[in-house]
């Protein structure tokens, strides 16, 4: 079951580059929230701050508070603990190349020391079903490597991998940008199905995608969040001129 996210005064830097400035935002639980904006606006950095992946880069720095449920992730916990609660799907599919499909899905549990084989089998099956990949791969779960699948299948495998640890939040950083249209629509359908059970934050540069899958949308520009509102309002009647310019394609 998902939980809400509350971000207060979040700032982030890459070296001397101030990539996120004073972000304040409440992301509701069990809904999909889209983040849009031109490339380099800080939306990817923002999601990487929510599971503390931002700080894996040695020159990166963060200030401010992020609460997931009632947990202050920068105060009350270590990165590994946060990342076990917050799943992430990356821009390019990144299955573990040496592992079978089964092991890819089970990786998050196995590598954290989970060893109940029978339950693992069930979790893998369920995760693959939830990511709408089960029917395509059920016959060679252990025979084929994750890297042997097509791009769209790989991305759904990555979603299954993220779901297997039963996260409370699912972050998706432009999950369909490297995929063909058919795979993209499959991923979108999937997000639509999943959002009732997880809090989903999806970064996208594709405005139609945001409109299709998300209840709420935030617009980022130059490291600041310009506007955050219901998707409907953002796309029909934005209150900020810059949002309107972006939506109508006047820049970006």
């Amino acid at each position, binding site marked *: 079951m998902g939980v809400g996210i509350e971000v207060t005064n979040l700032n982030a830097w890459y070296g001397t580059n101030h990539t996120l400035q004073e972000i304040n935002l409440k992301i509701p639980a069990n809904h999909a929230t889209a983040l849009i904006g031109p490339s380099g606006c800080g939306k990817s950095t923002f999601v990487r701050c929510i599971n503390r992946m931002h700080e894996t880069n040695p020159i990166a720095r963060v200030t401010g508070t992020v609460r997931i449920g009632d947990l202050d992730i920068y105060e009350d916990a270590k990165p590994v603990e946060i990342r076990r609660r917050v*799943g992430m799907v990356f821009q390019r599919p990144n299955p*573990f190349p*040496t592992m079978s499909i089964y092991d890819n899905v089970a990786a*998050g549990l196995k*590598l954290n020391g989970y060893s109940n084989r029978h339950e693992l089998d069930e979790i893998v099956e369920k995760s693959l079903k939830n990511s709408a990949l089960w029917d395509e791969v059920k016959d060679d779960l252990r025979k084929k*490597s994750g890297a042997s699948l097509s791009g769209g299948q790989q991305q759904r495998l990555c979603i299954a991998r*993220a779901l297997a640890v039963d996260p409370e939040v699912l972050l998706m950083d432009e999950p369909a940008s490297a995929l063909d249209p058919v795979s993209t629509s499959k991923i979108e359908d999937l997000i639509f199905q999943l959002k009732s059970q997880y809090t989903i934050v999806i970064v996208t540069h594709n405005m139609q995608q945001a409109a299709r899958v998300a209840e709420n949308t935030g617009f980022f520009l130059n490291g600041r969040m310009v506007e955050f509102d219901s998707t409907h309002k953002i796309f029909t009647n934005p209150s900020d001129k810059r949002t309107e310019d972006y939506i109508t394609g006047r820049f970006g």
Partner: protein
Amino acid sequence: MRTLTDHAVTGLAVLATVLVVAPLVAIFVYLVYKGASSLNLDFFTQIPKPVGESGGGMANAIGGSAMLLGLGSLIGVPIGIGGGIFLAEFGRGTKLANAVRFTADVLNGVPSIVMGIAAYSLVVVPQGHFSAFSGGVALGIMMIPTICRTTEEMLLMVPNAVREAALALGVPNWRSVLAITVKTASPGIITGCMLAFARVAGETAPLIFTAFGNAFWSSNLNQPIAALPLQIYVYAISPYEDWHRLAWAGALVLIVLIVLAVSLVRYVTSRGVLKGAS
């Protein structure tokens, strides 16, 4: 005139290539010719006979080499891989990493004879006698730089996306490095270990004052022990025809092992070290 020079240079380059390939062919042909005629079952099962008696083999030297190499690997492989992991996963871009890299190159350039006398004064002198152990230490140290640098290179070839995928699952860093990054790069790392192995398998100079050689069977780490390259050296500079033949046979065995290792390495690397890793 200019075209003439051009042709002349082409000719010279081809000649140079031939001159390089010629000694290799010569060495191989001669090795096979001389070695094969002296190779027989006795070579692999018998220990050397005293001068004057014909026959005998190098079973003890082959066994000794295997033991020395095993011991060397026990020392060189973990330290080398550990150093490589440090360079690729923890030290990227730091001064310490640069210093380690440079030191590994220095160690790689230390002449093997100097490694020999260093191992002598580090191990043989305190122990008070020559030993298999001291030879293994010398070989192990010599394996470290090659393994360390290839491990680093292979780990750097693992796409960062794979590391991020593991970290984003909340996998602890140590586990992510070992179970994901190192495992992904493992064919390349094994290749590096085999390269190092092949390199020290033929080393003689570091063994002269450490393993020392032994005319008999020995499996005692505290005793001098025979080694294939050492035995080849001793037999080659001896005045006895029989021993010369054994030296050739030994050299053939050694070179076959090394060529096999190098070819295997070549095969693995040409197949793509990280097959499937995009």
